[in-house]
């Protein structure tokens, strides 16, 4: 087995001292395609934010040997101003940040890649459209095209198919499969267990604590799912401090 791309070491992330992710350890292998599944409030998005370094661990750490630009991250309700006057093509071209940066030239080749990425997500001919004129599904396709252009080694997706129509979901799952085929590491937070079973070979089942992490068939057993639901709903206002394990 090759060296892991991301290692979680006793990771705990908390809000107001209540842990949202509790003593989580494990590794993501390079080229793996992992779903992070679990009930509401299980800490799935929190885990992604911790991996991206947007949240500081209360304990433990996230280790990886990657540059920031090796990560592609699609947050859940992205804080995007949809009324901003910017075209579809320019939005996708932001994905060339790794090569162009804040001040560099955008190569002709990048523009060609952006058009190709738009074609891949089924938005050929949309280049000059204003993003405000797109539907939610079309806009999600644009964000996937930007991720394609980013050419990231590790791709983190947070609930990418929530409120997205079935056809777009199918097309974008094909893009995910393509990334997997390229040998990229893909980690996606999903709440649709059918999708997880159908498309994701590995699953990390989370209910603030780790319930299971491994091949999807083994992890998504009904016993595990029941346990996950029971644990995620537990919230103790008067919980005592968690002593470090001896």
């Amino acid at each position, binding site marked *: 087995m090759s060296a892991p791309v991301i290692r979680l070491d006793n990771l705990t992330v908390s809000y107001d001292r209540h842990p949202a992710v509790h003593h989580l350890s494990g590794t993501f292998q390079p080229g793996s395609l992992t779903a992070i599944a679990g009930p509401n409030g299980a800490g799935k998005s929190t885990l992604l934010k911790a991996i*991206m370094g*947007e949240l500081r661990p209360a304990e433990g750490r996230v280790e990886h040997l990657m540059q*920031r*630009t090796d*990560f*592609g*991250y699609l*947050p859940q309700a*992205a*804080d*995007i*101003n949809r009324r*901003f*006057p*910017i075209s579809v093509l320019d*939005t996708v071209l*932001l994905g060339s*940040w*790794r090569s*162009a940066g*804040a*001040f560099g030239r955008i190569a002709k080749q990048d523009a060609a890649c952006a058009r190709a990425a738009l074609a891949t997500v089924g938005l050929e001919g949309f280049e000059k459209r*204003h993003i*405000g004129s797109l539907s939610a599904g079309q806009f999600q396709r644009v964000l996937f095209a*930007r991720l394609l252009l*980013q050419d990231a080694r590790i791709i983190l997706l947070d609930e990418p198919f929530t409120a997205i129509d079935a056809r777009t979901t199918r097309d974008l799952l094909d893009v995910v499969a393509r990334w997997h085929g390229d040998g990229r590491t893909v980690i996606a937070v999903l709440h649709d267990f059918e999708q997880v079973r159908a498309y994701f070979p590995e699953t990390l089942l989370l209910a603030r604590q780790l319930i299971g992490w491994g091949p999807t068939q083994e992890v998504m057993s009904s016993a595990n799912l029941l346990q996950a639901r029971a644990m995620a709903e537990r919230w103790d206002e008067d919980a005592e401090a968690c002593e470090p394990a001896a």
Partner: protein
Amino acid sequence: MTAYDIFFAPFADYGFMRRALVACLCLGLGSGPIGVFLMLRRMSLMGDAMSHAVLPGAAIGYLVAGSLSLTAMGIGGLVAGLSVALLSGVVSRMTVLQEDASFASFYLASLALGVLIVSLRGSNIDLLHVLFGTILAIDAPALTQIGAITSVTLLALAVIYRPLVAECFDPGFLRAVGGRGPIYHFLFLLLVVLNLVASFQALGTLMAVGLMMLPAAIAQLWSRNLPAMMIIAAASAAASGYLGLIASYHLELASGPTIIMTAALLYGLSIFFAPSGLARRFFPRPHLKG
């Protein structure tokens, strides 16, 4: 009266009108695009607050220099404006107050302090000048300073254009690619304060944002394309300056307010006649086939 008498003679005959005109054109070129970005960042009212925040610094500069010296007041205003912006940023990060609430508190305190300082030593005339500006009294050094600020603004905007757009449009993305968004946010605030300081002597602290926000609103009504919006904003600001000066000269009105009223008039016309305006609502065109 010939067209020459109306549109050119005031500037040909009087040096102060020429200087006022050049000042207006410069202010429009710089403030227009800045206003567009302020609006896109949903900070329209923040600019207004900021222009009041500049006052105590300008007042102290005025007391130290002993006259309406743009350099002294400019430096003081810059320091005061940036302090308020930074302090309110710090307060909103460390407490439960949202940025707009802490900003509002700071600028009100700042405005009160500024008026107090001016009234402590100056006369009511000075206070009027500080609040409403004296565009007809702009001298050559002040003009140089305004021109320098406009040049710096346009150059800086050109340099930080891409990260600034990314930071306005999708701050999460910029963070994820390690784009140092806060630096560009700060640079942008610096440009806002610089332009307010430039407008300060011309239009006064109460109307300094006039050539920033009204042209930006006009631009937003006419276009959905960012470069075009910036050009429209700069052009309508400059046009307001020119037409406002002419109107104030012939009708013997106060220049600063006339310039802002001209911008407001253009805004009113735009509300009716722009593509997304009211005229289209009352007289809709048939929808397209596809």
